[in-house]
């Protein structure tokens, strides 16, 4: 086998292994090791690759963002801030048709600014929002669909683990990516809200009709009290990064301490709970970082095989131009999104595509935002739609099946496709704050 064939085979083998349920990091490690041994003919070189990636690849200050933002997110979740936000948003939008749906999107957008994963958003709002939406007369399908759709904001609005992962893989400033995610995140949230308004008016068979506005209004003072901790955390973290006071790692540390104080103030932290938070943080941190270590090995293998260069030549020979390549790339992401999780798509595709697009002189921050939106569509598409799975597993209602969740999320997935087009046509949305 030529080196290029080894590279191509490695992609196919990884896709198959992941489908068999092998842990993604293990699949990447095994294929990288075997691949390097095949290319170089020596076990020692494969071994050196493993040990170097394991010991050195993540030993950088910027990697501190991962445990710190995860810790902050877990603390925010434990403080019950999600419910507070949902209460306040419900009050703000109660006069609109589809108001509680819009409130879910709004609360998710704000929650996303203090929390880095869509999974956390999906699990919190499944418990907080879905029962209330159904109680107010929305269809179960629409209720879970709104939660699934708006949970993607968690990864687009900073802090975001996917943006961090992209920044690490593409060697782009995580601070810049964070600033770039803000406007597209807001625009997407607005598009979602407009769609809900329109659907509630013209497709009320899908959304259901809200007929019970029996919730007691909340006093303004209580609304302020409920939203104050979140606003303070957002100002601290995003304000700190945007104002240039903190690096993202420092913002993570300060944000985690802030979230700890909020949770403490709200009386949510017993010793048992602190233990649970540390364990949960560790599980997310370890699985994500181990994946990055494995991805590091894999990108070294790909570089050794020369596949990225061959890809570049091949695509150049097709004369697609930048737009053609981007459309092809985004289509591949959306396609892979149906069978792979978000992180795996980035790990496999980025080492291949970056050498192809870099000669065009595109802005890699903007490219990152486009990539992340496309990757996130995969959270909502069957058969593997991680956000929908999370909602299903957090739902205490057996009448709502996985297919209902996918159907409910479909309009939101379509809006995200439109959002990709918008960011491609108007790159300033991503680049305005940098």
């Amino acid at each position, binding site marked *: 086998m030529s080196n290029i064939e080894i590279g191509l085979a490695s992609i196919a083998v990884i896709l198959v292994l*992941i*489908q*068999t*349920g*092998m*842990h*993604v*990091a*293990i*699949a990447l*490690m*095994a294929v990288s*090791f075997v691949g390097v041994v095949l290319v170089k003919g020596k076990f020692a070189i494969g*071994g*050196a690759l*493993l*040990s170097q990636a*394991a*010991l050195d690849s*993540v*030993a*950088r*200050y910027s*990697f*501190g963002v*991962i*445990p*710190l933002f995860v*810790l902050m997110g877990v603390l925010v979740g434990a403080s019950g801030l999600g419910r507070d936000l949902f209460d306040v948003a419900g009050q703000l939008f109660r006069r609109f048709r589809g108001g509680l749906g819009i409130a879910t999107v709004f609360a998710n957008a704000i929650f996303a600014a203090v929390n880095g994963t869509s999974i956390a958003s999906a699990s919190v709002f499944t418990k907080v929002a879905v029962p209330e939406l159904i109680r107010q007369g929305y269809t179960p399908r629409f209720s879970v669909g709104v939660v699934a759709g708006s949970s993607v904001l968690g990864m687009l609005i900073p802090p975001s683990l996917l943006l961090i992962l992209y920044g690490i893989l593409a060697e782009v400033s995580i601070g810049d990516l964070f600033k770039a995610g803000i406007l597209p995140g807001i625009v997407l949230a607005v598009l979602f809200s407009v769609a809900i308004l329109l659907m509630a008016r013209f497709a009320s068979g899908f959304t259901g009709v809200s007929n019970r506005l029996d919730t007691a209004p909340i006093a303004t003072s209580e609304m302020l009290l409920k939203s104050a901790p979140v606003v303070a955390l957002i100002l601290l973290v995003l304000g700190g990064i945007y104002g240039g*006071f*903190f690096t993202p*790692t*420092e913002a*993570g*540390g*300060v944000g*985690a*301490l802030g979230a700890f104080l909020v949770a403490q103030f709200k009386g949510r932290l017993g010793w048992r709970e602190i*233990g649970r938070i*540390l*364990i949960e*943080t*560790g*599980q*997310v*941190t*370890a*699985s*994500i*970082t*181990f*994946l990055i*270590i494995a991805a590091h090995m894999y990108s070294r293998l790909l570089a050794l095989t020369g596949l990225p260069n061959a890809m570049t030549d091949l695509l150049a020979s097709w004369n697609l131009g930048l737009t053609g390549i981007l459309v092809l790339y985004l289509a591949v992401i959306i396609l892979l999104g149906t*069978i*792979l*999780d978000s*992180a*795996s798509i980035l790990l496999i595709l980025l080492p291949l595509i970056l050498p192809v697009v870099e000669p065009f002189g595109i802005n890699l921050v903007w490219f990152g935002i486009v990539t992340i939106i496309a990757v996130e569509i995969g959270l909502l598409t069957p*058969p*593997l739609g991680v956000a929908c799975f999370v909602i299903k597993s957090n739902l205490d209602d057996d009448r709502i099946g996985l297919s209902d969740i996918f159907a409910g999320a479909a309009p939101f997935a379509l809006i995200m496709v439109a959002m990709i087009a918008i960011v491609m046509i108007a790159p300033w949305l991503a680049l305005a704050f940098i």
Partner: protein
Amino acid sequence: MTIESRAAPPLAAQRILTTIALVLAILGGLGTVAIMAMINLDVIGRGAFSTPLPATAEIVSASIVSIVFLQLPYATASGRAVRSDMVIGRIMARSPRAALLMDAMNHLVGTIMLAVLLRYIWPEIESAIADRETVGLYGVFTLPRWPFVLAVLAGCIMTCVVYAMLTISLFRMAFQPERHT
């Protein structure tokens, strides 16, 4: 995540290993809290008193690997590794034995890869300890490197052991049909 929850009643050995993994994970969690504290002291010290904490960046960088490897065994033991269990879940519905065997094979590959990793980081760790390497800024503030690499070693060994333990237990379940009905 659905596969592990069907596990047979754990053996004593399994309980002990899981407890060790849990202790390592808590140490890793405390490590995370420690770097959080360092960063805050650094930020406050720099902002309020113009005296940053020495060598914060270097020590945080060196800690990440240790923290991750300390947390890896327990994350693996609780089935939190990133994976796609859609296909295996469907096979599980038709033929539990086939699904369990498939999962056992996957964990076997995990065991082997961790053993390979261990084989190749061992000499590096040995030399880091023998050469009395340090972490930090030379002449300003340094810590010995051995606790950091020892944490990596402990985590790597335990992750390998946990993978082996899960492999064995999945094989056992696959060949004891009455256990997973």
